[in-house]
Every structure is written in C-alpha cells, then in structure tokens.
C-alpha cells in the first residue's frame, strides 16, 4: 500500500513518520504527477489558506478532485478545512466532503488545548484518545451521508470534531502529533475497503 501526504506546507513529516511506523510506503505530494499510483492521501495540519493557495498555483485542485473519485482522503485540521464544502470564507477548497466548517472555532492559540476523547470507531474504544486541538476548526453541520466519528460533549451540548462520508474522513485535531496510531490505522482500513 502506498499512501501520499500532501506536502505543500504543514506537519506532513509527522504523518509520514506515523505511516512508515505502520509499515506502509509513503510519498510526499507537491505536484499533480506525484499522485500517480497512490492508494490514499492524507492532507496534514498547517495553514489552510497557504495550502489552498499553493494547490491553486501548482494546478493541484482538479487532479486532487479526480483522485478523490476513487480514493480515500483524510484531512487533519487544515486538511479537514481543505476538503470541506463550506468554510464561510473566500479561500480555495476541494469541496469534497459534505460538511461545513467553522475555522478557529475555539479562538486563538491561547485557547488551544489537549482533550481526551472517547472514540467508539477506534480499536480499544474504551481507551481515550489524546486529541491535540491547535487553533482548531469544528465541524458545524454535516450532510446526509456523513457520520459523526468523535465529538466534544458536556452532556447538554456537543461539537463535532471528527466525521466520515464514505471515502472522506475529517478530524479537527491532530492524531499525527501523538504516539497513538489508532486514527492512522482506521484510515488505512478505509483505504483497504476502497
């Protein structure tokens, strides 16, 4: 299995380390030709405006959308923003996944945090996942075929922080910043399912 990580900007190296540790082949994707032969793609955390602008300049938007017709794509934080249909701002998007996203929903860096999430879809669901939220977005609305994978909840209110729609997967936090590989395993299973 060969998994690409979009390497225009952001913490792509952290994803590559995690993938190699799981024994899959990896490739940094900076140009359209780098997508050839990949089985799945991760779009990392970073600045979504920077990633979007570079994707436009290097003609990646259309090839990425074509790739998405047959392959699994996972976006973490900025990556989740980039694959969303709506972010309420004028910036380049792939518009793949039927979710709307509120950027910097918790505020600035001073409000960044780590929170232990219980995620039923992961292996060992009883073991909390330490989710790192950095100037994080949230998933505000989801479309019909989108299922919630993780949410922050206090009993009365809840906020969606991870969702899946068939081949597309979004997390508003950064599994690549931890040593816990369960989200990466989950994505590799998605890739295998085709």
């Amino acid at each position, binding site marked *: 299995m060969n998994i690409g990580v979009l390497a225009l900007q952001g913490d792509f190296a952290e994803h590559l380390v995690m993938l190699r540790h799981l024994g899959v082949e990896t490739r940094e994707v900076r140009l359209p030709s780098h997508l050839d032969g990949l089985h799945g793609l991760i779009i990392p955390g970073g600045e979504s405006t920077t990633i979007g602008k570079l994707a436009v300049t290097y003609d990646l938007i259309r090839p990425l959308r074509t790739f998405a017709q047959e392959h699994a794509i996972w976006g973490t934080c900025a990556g989740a923003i980039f694959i969303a249909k709506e972010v309420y701002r004028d910036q380049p998007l792939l518009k793949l996944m039927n979710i709307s996203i509120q950027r910097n929903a918790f505020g600035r860096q*001073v409000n960044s945090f780590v929170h232990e999430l219980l995620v039923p879809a992961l292996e060992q669901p009883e073991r909390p996942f330490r989710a790192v939220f950095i100037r994080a977005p949230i998933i505000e609305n989801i479309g019909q075929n989108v299922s919630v994978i993780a949410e922050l909840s206090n009993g009365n209110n809840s906020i969606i922080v991870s969702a899946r729609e068939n081949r597309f997967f979004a997390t508003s936090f950064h599994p690549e910043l931890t040593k816990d590989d369960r989200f990466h395993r989950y994505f590799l299973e998605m890739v295998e399912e085709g």
Partner: protein
Amino acid sequence: MALDKRSFALALARMVKSLYESQVQILEANVENEVGTFAVKKGLAQMLKGGVIMDVVTVEHARIAEEAGAVAVMALERVPADIRAQGGVARMSDPELILQIMEAVSIPVMAKVRIGHFVEAQILEALGVDYVDESEVLTPADEHNHINKHEYGIPFVCGCRNLGEALRRIGEGAAMIRTKGEAGSGDVVEAVRHARAVLGEIRKLQNTPDMELMAYAKKIGAPYKLVQETKELKSLPVVNFAAGGIATPADAALMMQLGVEGVFVGSGIFKSGDPARRAKAIVEAVTHYNDPKILAEISRNLGEAMVGIGISDIPESERMAVRGW
C-alpha cells in the same frame, strides 16, 4: 449615527461570533482540557512547518502577506533594516497596531518583545497574540537573563547561533527556535553560519558517547537533559526555522536544503521592489525547495531585491545576533 454597509456587516459578524464563542466556552468550561501545555505550544510551531513567517508593519502589509500564502505574520513597528538605519531604542510594538493586524488576517499573528522584558511579554499574552518572539532585533532589556517562558500560556520563539544557545532557550521554555542570522542585512551568510552550527553540532552529537554528554553539556552551556534528548531525537526537541538576511527565493531554498523547517523573512519582502510578488515566490520556494526547475521559474522577474548591507560592513557593535546570552 448611520453605519455604512461595511461597518454594519462587521458589527453583525462580531455579534454572531461572540454569541457562538460563548456557547463554545460554556462547553469548554465543562470538559477537562489541558491548555497552554508544552505540547500545545510546540504544536502550533509544527503547523507552521514548511512555511514562511513575514515581518509586517501595517495592516496592508499583513493582508499582502496572507494573500501571498504566509503561514503567520510578525507584527512590528519597524522592520529590522529600518531599526538598523534609524537607530534608537527598539521596543515592543504599539498594542493598537498588533490588535489591528490580528483583526485583519486569519493566520497566526506573532509579535516581538525585548530580551528579558517579561512585562512586554505579559502584555502580548493579554492581547492574545499567537506567538511571542523574544528577539535580539529589539534592544535588550536584561543583559544576563532571558524571560522564564514556562510561566506563560502562549508560546515563545527565540533566536540562536549554536546548539548551546538553542538548548538554553528551550530550557527556559521556548517552544520554537530560529537561527538568528543577521536581521535587516539582506546578507544570508550569517543565517547559513548559524544553521550550519546548530545542525552540524547535532550531527556530531550522534557520535558522542553517552559518557561524554555531561562534559559536552557543560562545555556548550546547555541543560544536560536537553542534550540527551537532542541526541536521541537527532534533532532539536522543537521546530527549527531560519531567520536573518533571507532576501530571495534561492536564499529560502538554501536554508531549507541545509535542513531547517521553515523561514522567517523580515526586511527582505517589504524592502524589495515588488513585495507581493517576492512574498509569493518565497512561499513557493519553501515548498519546492528541492526542485531547481521550479526555483528557476519562480525566481524570474521579481524586481529589485532589498539593497542590503554586507555583514563585513556592519561593525561588531552594531550586530544584532550577538545579543542574547
């Protein structure tokens, strides 16, 4: 008083945002979160990797930087080249300017404090800036001590010239490091010298037996634990950018090929003939740093680079990189 359309829209947007945030805060207050921990501070720097952080002195500059694809902006009153030219005491910027820039862009905003000036840092934390640069570009406020950066909920970046200096700053709580170079010079030679020093010392550390680590830590004036950690990781324990004198896409790609994880560009953009174009080219050069064909393409027709001043023409006493202890 009649509001014009734009102010009305802005006021409405603020109202919606504050309503929305109050809901988020209620929720946050009820869940146990770790805020301001080292992982969270270092995390933002990890998101900036492969990117360009640009010095800006006006809201207009900040918008140009964001439009060009900067990952963050450094809000300043004067770029280093002007500080050098005009002289006088260089201090933290007016909070009003910083707030205006924070309002104008969606990317992270950084701001500088003087070395050791912990109250300027408290003020920036109160403003809610995303990163503080305890910087040799400003006039130092303390000739012996740097700020105890562990005490703050917001992260700090600090400059260094070698591994010892980098690890002292990390020991004090810096969550990101940048090699100093010589700010405002437009001459990349010092940035190269400092990056080669830090990265070269890390390479040599790989061959240093564990038994010699304490003596080595003593020699370079670095915390022993961090020397051990650096050897294990084969890299600094935090993200490492280059700064000081980067003026062209080729300079930026040079620093990336040497092994840094991103670049700060100070005077190099807004002291050049066509800032918007040069800014975009430098952003692209950091992404495609290993692709000479693309570098050739993006280096074409950028207009005048900043004039600059060769390092040998800057007297020792006027060099900024020597500030910091």
